[in-house]
């Protein structure tokens, strides 16, 4: 703050502070508070608002716990978000290790560029692309049949398969970057020291590299999990009739039933329950919040 004052003077500093405060309070905190307040009030016709029927209660939240189907959808959302997180880790870890420790430093920027180019295309288009790729008579099945791996086309767009594939594709980089940073900060001498002491490659990973990368794994996993559980676009586009994502239910409350109150309650429940889930998992793996912030 003193730095800013010295560099830009009082007037500009005040402007910066005011703009930041406006963004944070008016555009981030206030809408959330509005929804939060609403989530405790009943859904009423305009005439009854502010009347005797308009009082605070936990009824909107209880709606969720009274609905087995909604609970089931929530559980599947958590389960498949976890699957997405694990798959992202399995894909990103070797890649991150390669980029951080194996690839020559002069090709790393090019490789990162190649990884980032798909992000230049909008998420909607990318989801649609997978819709086409995974179609029953789409290119993926065509290729698999062509190589002879399968003799019947695979129905990808059933259950949660296509949703998981789409989410992994969309969020894998959120796992890659924290992992890359974590592995890159490991002193290469430690890897060589382990090898010098006779360690085979897998033990070096298990005992030296993975423990060091734990904070990166944790922050990548939290990000991928939260983004997946909160994703609406990919599940809407790639889901089949027998797979529903929890966010779709929130959307139904808000846009199809016009019941923003219950929708808000569901949204906060999603946030709360996911946070609890993540905390429990972090406790199980002995990761501290301060590790992630590093």
């Amino acid at each position: 703050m003193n730095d800013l004052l010295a560099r830009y003077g009082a007037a500009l500093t005040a402007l910066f502070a005011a703009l930041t405060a406006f963004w944070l309070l008016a555009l981030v905190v206030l809408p959330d508070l509005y929804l939060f307040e609403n989530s405790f009030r009943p859904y009423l016709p305009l005439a009854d608002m502010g009347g005797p029927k308009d009082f605070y209660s936990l009824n909107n939240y209880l709606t969720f716990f009274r609905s087995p189907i909604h609970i089931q959808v929530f559980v599947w959302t958590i389960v498949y978000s976890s699957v997405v997180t694990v798959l992202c880790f399995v894909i990103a870890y070797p890649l991150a290790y390669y980029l951080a420790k194996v690839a020559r430093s002069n090709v790393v920027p090019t490789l990162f560029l190649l990884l980032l180019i798909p992000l230049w295309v909008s998420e909607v288009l990318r989801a649609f692309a997978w819709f086409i790729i995974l179609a029953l008579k789409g290119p993926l099945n065509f290729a698999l049949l062509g190589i002879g791996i399968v003799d019947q086309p695979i129905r990808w767009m059933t259950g949660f398969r296509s949703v998981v594939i789409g989410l992994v594709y969309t969020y894998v980089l959120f796992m890659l970057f924290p992992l890359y940073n974590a592995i890159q900060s490991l002193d290469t001498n430690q890897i060589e020291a382990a090898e010098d002491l006779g360690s085979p490659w897998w033990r070096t990973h298990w005992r030296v590299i993975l423990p060091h990368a734990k904070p990166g794994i944790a922050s990548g996993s939290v990000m991928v999990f939260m983004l997946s559980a909160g994703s609406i676009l990919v599940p809407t586009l790639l889901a089949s009739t027998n797979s529903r994502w929890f966010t779709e239910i929130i959307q139904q409350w808000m846009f199809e039933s016009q019941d923003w109150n219950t929708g808000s309650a569901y949204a906060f429940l999603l946030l709360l329950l996911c946070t609890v889930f993540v905390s429990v998992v972090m406790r199980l793996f002995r990761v501290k919040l301060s590790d992630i912030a590093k």
Partner: protein
Amino acid sequence: MSAGVDLDVVSADFGSFRAVDRVTVHIKPGEFFSFLGPSGCGKTTILRMISGFIRPSEGKISIGGQDMRDIRPNQRPTALIFQNLALFPLMPVWENIAFGLEVRGVDKKARRAKAEELLRLVDLPGAADKAIGQLSGGQKQRVAIARALAVEPKVMLLDEPLSALDLKLRQHMRAELRAIQKRTNVTFIYITHDQGEALAMSDRVGVMSQGRLQQVAIPQEIYNNPTNGFVASFVGENNVFSGKIGTMNGKGAEFETGAGTFKALLGPGVTASTNSKLYLRPEHARLVASPTNGENAIPVEIADVAFEGNFISIQARDAGGKILVAEARNDVRAAVPAPGEKMHLVFDPDRAIILADAGPVPDIDVVA
């Protein structure tokens, strides 16, 4: 158990840069051998080739008579101590030490016992359960040594492991390392740019410059009979005189310099046509009021006198303004010259040596 290490005409190229150039040296089992040289001279590359992290571009490396060509670092009978030690910060001390045993499938109880035993060997008992971050620099050093010894290597490779320590601890660890080497009788190959370290600890020293081995000999030989100008100026102090060789007579010659013509010994391989300089160690230079006839003498004016305790370092300026250094033992009975005094710097012909600037690659297979 220890093994000898043989390097036969080993070179290492990085692109067009030749880091190690045709090095041949035979290190004996149980020997404490140091590679000494300035940074960038290729000594670390040699160490990494012996440990297996770099493949030689040419030549052959054998350990205990066995060719190491296709043997990976984790299969070699060597243990490397890194410059920054590379201890595993997330494991407690004992797991660090026992890591090599864990790899070899030794059960936990035996691992723990071995770690405790090694901690006693390196004089650090009771540290088994400490975290690496709790240790001081010297303690980390000991843990690194114990970790390397745990795998019972035949050859121990040390990459300037003392460079991060303060002076006092460094001197203490020198003696400690030497003692551990004698106790375990493992071959030690030590890399350093610190000549004091190399001379004090080693059985033999190999001096390197620009990828080439300049001289391999016992420490006294390196200091007293350097083979060329590089070794003479890198190891210890010298007064250096440019000039050319005059009349030669057997093992000696007259050397014509701007400060006069002096009688001196001829270094190895030096002929009348070699580009050479005259080297005189400060401790071989004396200051006298008047020289005897025919003695090597340079008229000087005393510029500065530094009292160092056990010796006195005297800087003197010759007629051409060049600063020469003479060292005298602190003999309380002798008078110490005062700055401004006019004297003569004299030296014996068999204490000054004429050495080639960039000598031919000397005969490197010298046996100590």
